[in-house]
């Protein structure tokens, strides 16, 4: 018997008992929908965690701090300095894409007629692209850059016009273009300002010319508020600042910047970038073992996942249970129709249907039920998912705050792969449910079947 013939024969058979077929298909659809919706809730929950955590910074990045420099680890090993050698060692760890020391200085910056206090982050220029800092304009930092900087999108909010009265505030206009303006920075926190009674430092700090080459877009992290410059440049500035501070010590004049960054014994902070989300925890374990403090948003993500794992398993369990009920429904329908059609099975056996043909006709019937049920089920799932999200049924959904304002996260999300899996799974499960009934049809005795009315 040809496949086409068994396909069309089985669908004709199903159509003969419309109501029962439709009811069974509905059962499968609901079972399929239950699994998809339950999974979609779990998936949405996971995505929401990810979205929330991403707000806290990049989860592929690990901040390494040298809190305990010079101390010992709990098992008595000396903690080595966080220096270039150690960075090289981090970079050799499995799953590490790169590492950069981080140095942070605070300076006064003048842009056109405006001035502002800014925080400058020094990172290695070649690491810039690895840190997933989104650029809105211009170019990233590159090897060979010196006094070039990339500024965070909120940095302009720090600027004001010092010439207007001390008691009013003229902020920088929003369309101010840093890339075209003449820019200078100074260690002197009074730089660019003058007001009565201001004391002058003993040695004047010489302003340094800088140049903006790029602007950071929405990153949701500290980069929004910072200026990023090549590490070596920032290190040089730090030396200048230290020197200038020494020259002015005891003079009482001027305002001195605070800074963090290099000590004689290596760096205080290093960022390590992993190349795979699954490696992050592993890398963190290795670095912690050396005695350094580690931080990554992934720790929060892991906590959230652990706490919700039980809930997600229950959801999946409910889904699977409903599908099993649907599968039993299929088997039941098949058995019923075999009892009804016993004589017919006898007839087609007599006129030459092979056992394989009979089995195939019944398996096909189950398969059709599964296919239609699966299609309908996915349709239902999308509808239900849409409604859940529209009415914001609060099961794993939540609201997070972003710079654009409040953002409501979906409570249900059906990825394409989930619908594909469900569509493949429903007919396969139906086939399984059809195996037992179809074997029974196959094994019917011809004579007994013919005698039955």
């Amino acid at each position, binding site marked *: 018997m040809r496949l086409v013939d068994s396909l069309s024969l089985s669908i004709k058979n199903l159509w*003969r008992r419309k109501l029962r077929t439709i009811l069974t298909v509905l059962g499968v659809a609901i079972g399929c929908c239950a699994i998809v919706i339950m999974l979609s809730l779990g998936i949405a929950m996971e995505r929401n965690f990810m979205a929330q955590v991403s707000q806290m910074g990049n989860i592929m990045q690990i901040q390494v701090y040298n809190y305990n420099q010079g101390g010992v680890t709990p098992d008595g090993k000396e903690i080595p300095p966080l220096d270039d050698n150690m960075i090289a060692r981090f970079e050799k760890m499995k799953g590490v894409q790169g590492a950069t020391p981080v140095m942070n200085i605070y300076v006064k910056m003048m842009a056109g007629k405006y001035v502002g206090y800014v925080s400058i982050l020094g990172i290695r220029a070649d690491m810039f692209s690895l840190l997933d800092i989104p650029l809105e304009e211009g170019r990233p930092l590159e090897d060979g850059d010196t006094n070039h900087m990339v500024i965070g999108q909120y940095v302009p909010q720090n600027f004001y016009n010092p010439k207007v009265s001390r008691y009013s505030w003229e902020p920088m206009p929003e369309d101010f273009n840093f890339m075209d303006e003449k820019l200078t920075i100074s260690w002197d926190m009074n730089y660019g300002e003058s007001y009565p009674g201001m004391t002058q430092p003993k040695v004047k700090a010489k302003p340094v010319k800088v140049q903006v080459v790029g602007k950071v877009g929405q990153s949701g992290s500290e980069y929004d508020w910072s200026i990023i410059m090549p590490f070596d440049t920032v290190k040089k500035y730090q030396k200048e600042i230290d020197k200038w501070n020494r020259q002015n010590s005891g003079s009482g004049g001027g305002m001195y910047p605070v800074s963090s960054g290099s000590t004689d014994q290596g760096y205080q902070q290093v960022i390590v970038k992993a190349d795979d989300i699954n490696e992050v925890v592993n890398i963190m374990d290795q670095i912690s073992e050396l005695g350094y403090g580690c931080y990554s948003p992934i720790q929060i993500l892991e906590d959230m996942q652990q706490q919700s794992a039980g809930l997600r398993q229950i959801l999946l369990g409910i889904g699977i249970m409903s599908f099993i009920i649907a599968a039993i429904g299929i088997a039941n329908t098949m058995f019923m129709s075999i009892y009804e059609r016993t004589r017919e099975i006898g007839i087609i056996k*007599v006129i*030459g*249907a*092979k056992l394989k*043909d009979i089995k195939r006709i019944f398996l096909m019937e189950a398969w059709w039920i599964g296919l239609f049920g699966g299609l309908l089920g996915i349709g239902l799932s999308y509808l239900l998912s849409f409604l859940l999200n529209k009415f914001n049924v609060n099961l794993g959904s939540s609201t997070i705050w972003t710079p654009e304002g409040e953002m409501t996260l979906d409570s249900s999300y059906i990825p394409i792969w989930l619908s594909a899996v469900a569509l493949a799974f429903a007919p396969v499960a139906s086939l399984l449910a059809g195996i037992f009934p179809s074997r029974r049809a196959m094994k019917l005795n011809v004579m007994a079947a013919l005698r039955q009315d």
Partner: protein
Amino acid sequence: MSVIITLNDVYRAYRMGPERIMAVDGVSLEIEEGEICCLKGPSGSGKSTLLHLMAGLDRPSKGSIYIGKTRIDKLSENQLAVFRQRYVGFIFQSYYLIPTLTALENVALPLTFCGISKNKRIMKAKELLESVGLKDRMGHKPSQMSGGQQQRVSIARSFVNSPKVVFADEPTGNLDTATTYEMMDLMTNLAKESNQTLVIVTHDNEISGYASRIINIRDGKIEKIQNGRKMHHEKINAR
């Protein structure tokens, strides 16, 4: 004339509660190609069981059955199915048509299981329905047809795969006398065209008139064999 069906000392026992009933009790028989053979006997004589054994629908408790050179009581279920597709046709008392299929689809159904393409099987089925005089009933369902028409469909179905042997189990049991003659004419004419063998179970005396040989069965045994009024596919003029 070559022998088409051979039965060698065939037994078929049934268990009915504690009792053992010999439905077929030591039958040996040869049926020749092109013969119209009538199995006759009172009800419960075992004539239907004998037909089912010859057709491979049932298996003997003892003995051997050959169709042509094939020993059919040793074939597997699947081999039997293929064997039926190629060599055997069936006609039953209650027609046994599939109620949801049209006349045309019913006739074409055996060819479906042979794996013949749709166009070919529709063509062949149309041809046969025409020859049984149902040209204008092809799209009708069995429920829309009279008993005689249904039996015509069933006859067309039994001949559609050009079988060597057609088995008929009380084919006219549900029909009136006039229709019985029509059916018998039809069957014998169709069989004659390609020298096909007909084995008919009946207790109708009208039918025995068409037979080349009448085998009387009683209590599972052959009581006597009569030569019929007709020889092999002799011109039929029973009425």
